[in-house]
C-alpha cells in the first residue's frame, strides 16, 4: 500500500508566541489546532482523527481530545521526539487510505522557556527505567555535547570545518531577517559564528538552535475533502520513517536515520533529490543539517561541508534553499521539537505563501525532514515529500 496522492495537507499554523508564560500547555495545543483548522476553513467538529506526541499533557491524544471536545474515530500518540509530527503526517495518510479517518489534526506545543529552561547544557534523562540511562546519564550527556561529538567525528573523518558549519547558520539568518516572529532576526557572518563562545567543542553558541515556547498544527485530509477546500493543494507524495540506534555499541556518529527514511520517501514519491525545489531540514544544530543533507542524497557523504558553504542554502542565491522561515537556528524550535515547523514552512513554500524575499519561484516539490531524539545516541528520522498540484 502506498500513500502517494492519498492525502493532502489542507491546514498549517505556527503559533506566533515564542514565550508563553501566560498560557497552559493544553491551551497552546488548542490554539494551534484552531489556527490550522481555520487555515483549512474547517472546524473542530470536522476532525475525526487526531495525532500528537509526548509533548501533549496527560494521556496525550486522550487528554487533548477531552480538552478540545473532539469526537474521534482514530488517534495516535506515537512519540519520536522532534520528528514525531512528520511521522504523524505519514501515519495520518495511512489512516486516511485505510478509511479510518478523513480529517486528521496534528498538534505540537511546548513551553520550555516558561518552565525555566534557559540553556541547553543540562543533561537530560528519559527516566531510570529507560535501559540506556544507567550507562549514559552519569557521564552528563546534554543535547549539545552529544551533537558536538557527531561534529568532531565528522570533522575527523571528512575534514569538515567550523567555517563550513557556520554557513548553515548564516543561511538561516539571511532568511530569518524577513520573519517578524523569528527570535533571532539579525543577519550573521561566518566570523560571527566561529567567534561566538564555544559551548561544547567544536560547537559554538551560534551553531545551536533557539529555545522557544509555542507550537504548531497541521490538518491532513482525504483527497475528496481537499477538493472542497479553497486553499492551494499540497499533496503528499511520499513518507519514510526509521530509527537509528547504537546496534549494541557499534557506534557510527557520521550518519543519521535519514539514510533509511530518505530513500523510502523518495521511492514512494518517485522523485530524486535533484528534483526538490525547497527543503526543510531539522536544524537543532548546524551539524544536524549537514549530516542529514548528505544522508538524504543532496550531496555525497563527506561532501556536506563543501555543499553548504558559500551561501548554497540561501534562497535566491543558493542551489538548495532551506528553512526559509529561519528554522530552529533563528526562528523557532517550540518545545525543543523542530519537526512541526519544518512541515509548516514547506507548506508555505508550496502554496507560494512564504515571505516574498525568500519564496522559491515555482516551488512545486518540497521535502521536509526531521530528527527526533539525539543524533549522538538514538533517534528517529522522518522524511516527507510534498507536491503542489
Amino acid at each position: 500500500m502506498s500513500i502517494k496522492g492519498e492525502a493532502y495537507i489542507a491546514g498549517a499554523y505556527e503559533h506566533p508566541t515564542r514565550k508563553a508564560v501566560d498560557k497552559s500547555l493544553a491551551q497552546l495545543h488548542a490554539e494551534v489546532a484552531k489556527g490550522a483548522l481555520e487555515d483549512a476553513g474547517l472546524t473542530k467538529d470536522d476532525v475525526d482523527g487526531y495525532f500528537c506526541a509526548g509533548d501533549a499533557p496527560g494521556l496525550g491524544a486522550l487528554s487533548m481530545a477531552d480538552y478540545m471536545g473532539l469526537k474521534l474515530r482514530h488517534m495516535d500518540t506515537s512519540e519520536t521526539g522532534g520528528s514525531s509530527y512528520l511521522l504523524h503526517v505519514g501515519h495520518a495518510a495511512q489512516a486516511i487510505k485505510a478509511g479510518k479517518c478523513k480529517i486528521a489534526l496534528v498538534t505540537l506545543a511546548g513551553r520550555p522557556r516558561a518552565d525555566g529552561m534557559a540553556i541547553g547544557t543540562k543533561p537530560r534523562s528519559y527516566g531510570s527505567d529507560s535501559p540506556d540511562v544507567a550507562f549514559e546519564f552519569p557521564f552528563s550527556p546534554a543535547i549539545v555535547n552529544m551533537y558536538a561529538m557527531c561534529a568532531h567525528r565528522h570533522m575527523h573523518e571528512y575534514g569538515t570545518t567550523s567555517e563550513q558549519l557556520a554557513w548553515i547558520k548564516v543561511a538561516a539568518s539571511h532568511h530569518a531577517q524577513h520573519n517578524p516572529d523569528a527570535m533571532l532576526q539579525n543577519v550573521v557572518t561566518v566570523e560571527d559564528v566561529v567567534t561566538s563562545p564555544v559551548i561544547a567543542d567544536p560547537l559554538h553558541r551560534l551553531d545551536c538552535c533557539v529555545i522557544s515556547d509555542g507550537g504548531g498544527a497541521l490538518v491532513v485530509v482525504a483527497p475528496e475533502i481537499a477538493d472542497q477546500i479553497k486553499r492551494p493543494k499540497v499533496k503528499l507524495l511520499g513518507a519514510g520513517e526509521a530509527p537509528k540506534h547504537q546496534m549494541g555499541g557499534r557506534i557510527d556518529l557520521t550518519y543519521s536515520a535519514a539514510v533509511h527514511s530518505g530513500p523510502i520517501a523518495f521511492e514512494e514519491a518517485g522523485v530524486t533529490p535533484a528534483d526538490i525545489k525547497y527543503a526543510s531540514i531539522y536544524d537543532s544544530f548546524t551539524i544536524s543539517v549537514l549530516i542529514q543533507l548528505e544522508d538524504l542524497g543532496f550531496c555525497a557523504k563527506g561532501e556536506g561541508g563543501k555543499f553548504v558553504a558559500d551561501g548554497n542554502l540561501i534562497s535566491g542565491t543558493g542551489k538548495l534553499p532551506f528553512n526559509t522561515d529561519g528554522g530552529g537556528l533563528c526562528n523557532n524550535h517550540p518545545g525543543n521539537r523542530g519537526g512541526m515547523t519544518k512541515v509548516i514552512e514547506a507548506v508555505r513554500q508550496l502554496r507560494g505563501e512564504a515571505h516574498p524575499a525568500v519564496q522559491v519561484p515555482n516551488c512545486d516539490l518540497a521535502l521536509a525532514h526531521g530528527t527526533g531524539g539525539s543524533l549522538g545516541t538514538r533517534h528517529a528520522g522522518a522524511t516527507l515529500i510534498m507536491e503542489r498540484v
Partner: protein
Amino acid sequence: MAETRTIAAPHVELETQEYWDALKDGKLLLKKCRSCNASHHYPRSTCPHCGSSDTFFEETNGKGTIYSYSVMRRVPDPYAIAYVTLDGTDVTMMTNIINCDLNGLSIGQAVRFVSVETETAGTFVPMFEPA
C-alpha cells in the same frame, strides 16, 4: 572554586547487577553472546545482534581508543564526554575522560579504564584516562 559536577549514581537493575558489582572491584565487564560470539554494550540479557538469551559477562583489559569527544565549556566545572572503543572489540561506549588536560584530547588517543565512585558511596561507573 568552581562548582563540582555531580556524577549521578546509576539505577541498578538485577539484569546488570554483575556489571556494577565488578566496577566496585575495579573491573570493566563486557557482555558477550555464546550463540553469535558478538559483544554488545550497554549490557542486556538478550543479545541485540542475534536475539539469543545465552549471554554472559567477560572481563576486558580496560584499554581503549577515543572515537569522539567533546569538552562542555559553558558549565561551572568543564568536563569531557567521550565515546571510547574498547581495544580488540567493535564496541564503543559512552564515558568521561578524566585526569587529563581538557585541551589536549584527540580522536584516536589511547585511554585506559578507571573505576570512579558516584554521588552514592559504593557505586561506581567506568571512566577513562590517558594511557
